[in-house]
């Protein structure tokens, strides 16, 4: 928590640094409206350069907040930065008492560069927000994002360099160059150099196993002389598969389903539902993959003193919880876990036999309750959905000592969290990972 606050304060310090600089070392005062307009542009520039750092999966930042939260923050801040940059020309025009800057055509080239930057920032933000509603596939969106981001960086470097009086002063010039180089380096490292480094030590697919229906587990082993990097049960990683020609090569993130105590392989259990994941069954032993990770803070290991856990899972949402249960089994962890696991039919239940085995082994002290929404006539267990009624039935009314881990389809997770809050569970006792970065 303290580390998180420190990092947020550092962020605030650096993002506002050029404003402090210009106040004391910059151009002369030209009226409050004019100077606030300039300050907003400086802050907007710094926010955008920091966007490259936030998105680059830097461990030092990620481990405090979790990558899901960082990417979400990256998204919110992009909207705020766009707001600051929109205010910049409006306030400048107001301070000059003329609309020429906004609607005039006879403007210097560097003003047009600024306008182009602003249009691209707005376009980038809108495309990211409405990506799914526009029917834009993740890979295509990412390509557009990767083209727009560095273009914006160049434009927002050039525009003030020629347009602003403040950039004539050395401290601000130096800061401008350093921040632009940092952002550019982060982009190049994140998108080109690191993937190349990872490809130098590829993992090998050792097994592709059908768990249930369209759910597959892919096991990966490190190349000779390499070892699996430490990870926490419940975390996720980014995988890029290199398979037979014709199969797509794309980077996607999946939860790790294996236990960190297992040192020979690392596995992800994947539901084949999307364009890419439908090709997972075509993955063969001997294919290779790059592994980048691990990320996330959805893990019981981060809270060793909590002994009374309730796992609320739906469908493929079982995977991070399974990693935790396997880790508890492997480390002889005797804490109490109640798993309420929702699926449509019996055939959809993933890891059913292994869950039973863990339950029988009493390490952890696990109780599994399957809840089926489309159960057949033979089903003697719970029917319906994992909901408030089921939670009250198996956890009792007093939930104050329980810690809830929620993982499943977004609507289910949201409904469950709403129910838990209505039942008086403190927010701090509900854990959820947001696996879909763009939602």
């Amino acid at each position: 928590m303290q580390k998180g606050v420190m990092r947020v304060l550092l962020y605030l310090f650096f993002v506002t640094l050029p404003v402090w600089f210009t106040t004391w070392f910059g151009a002369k005062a030209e009226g409050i409206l004019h100077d606030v307009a300039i300050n907003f542009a400086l802050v907007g520039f710094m926010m955008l350069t920091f966007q490259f750092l936030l998105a680059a999966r830097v461990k030092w930042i990620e481990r405090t907040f979790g990558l899901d939260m960082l990417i979400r923050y990256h998204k919110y801040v992009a909207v705020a930065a766009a707001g600051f940059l929109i205010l910049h020309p409006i306030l400048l025009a107001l301070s000059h008492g003329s609309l020429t800057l906004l609607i005039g055509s006879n403007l210097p080239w560097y003003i047009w560069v600024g306008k182009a930057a602003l249009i691209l920032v707005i376009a980038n933000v809108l495309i990211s927000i409405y990506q799914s509603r526009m029917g834009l596939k993740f890979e295509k969106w990412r390509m557009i994002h990767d083209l727009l981001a560095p273009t914006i960086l160049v434009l927002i470097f050039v525009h003030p360099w020629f347009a602003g009086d403040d950039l004539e002063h050395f401290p601000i010039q130096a800061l401008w160059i350093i921040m632009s180089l940092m952002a550019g380096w982060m982009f190049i490292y994140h998108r080109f150099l690191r993937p190349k480094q990872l490809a130098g030590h590829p993992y090998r697919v050792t097994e592709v196993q059908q768990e249930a229906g369209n759910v597959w587990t892919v096991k990966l082993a490190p190349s000779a002389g390499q070892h699996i990097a430490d990870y926490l049960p419940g975390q996720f990683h980014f995988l890029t598969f290199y398979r037979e020609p014709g199969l797509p090569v794309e980077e996607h993130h999946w939860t790790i389903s294996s236990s960190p105590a297992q040192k020979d392989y690392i596995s992800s259990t994947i539901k084949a539902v999307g364009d890419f994941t439908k090709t997972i069954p075509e993955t063969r032993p001997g294919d290779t993959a790059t592994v980048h990770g691990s990320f996330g803070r959805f893990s019981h290991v981060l809270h060793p003193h909590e002994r009374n856990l309730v796992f609320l899972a739906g469908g493929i949402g079982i995977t991070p919880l399974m990693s935790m249960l396997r880790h508890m089994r492997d480390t002889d962890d005797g804490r109490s876990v109640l798993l309420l696991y929702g699926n449509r039919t019996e055939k959809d239940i993933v890891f059913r036999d292994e869950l039973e085995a863990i339950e029988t082994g009493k390490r952890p002290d696990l109780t599994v309750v399957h809840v089926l929404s489309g159960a057949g006539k033979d089903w003697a267990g719970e029917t319906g959905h994992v909901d408030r009624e089921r939670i009250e039935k198996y956890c009792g009314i007093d939930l104050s000592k329980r810690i809830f881990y929620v993982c499943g389809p977004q609507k289910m997770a949201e409904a469950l969290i709403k129910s838990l809050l209505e039942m008086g569970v403190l927010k701090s006792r509900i854990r959820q990972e947001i696996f879909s970065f763009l939602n």
Partner: protein
Amino acid sequence: MRKSILHRTTIAVVAVLLLVPVLLGVLKNTVIPHPKAHETHEEHEAHEHGGEDES
């Protein structure tokens, strides 16, 4: 819950990022002595004197 912490943090950060530019913009135009202001004053005076000399 982490999501609500994120929302609160984002709102606080954006509020600070709004306030600092506004406050420093106001301060720059009111109380902060600016080296350029002195320079400008001298330039202005020099210009005025130059103007007088020329006339």
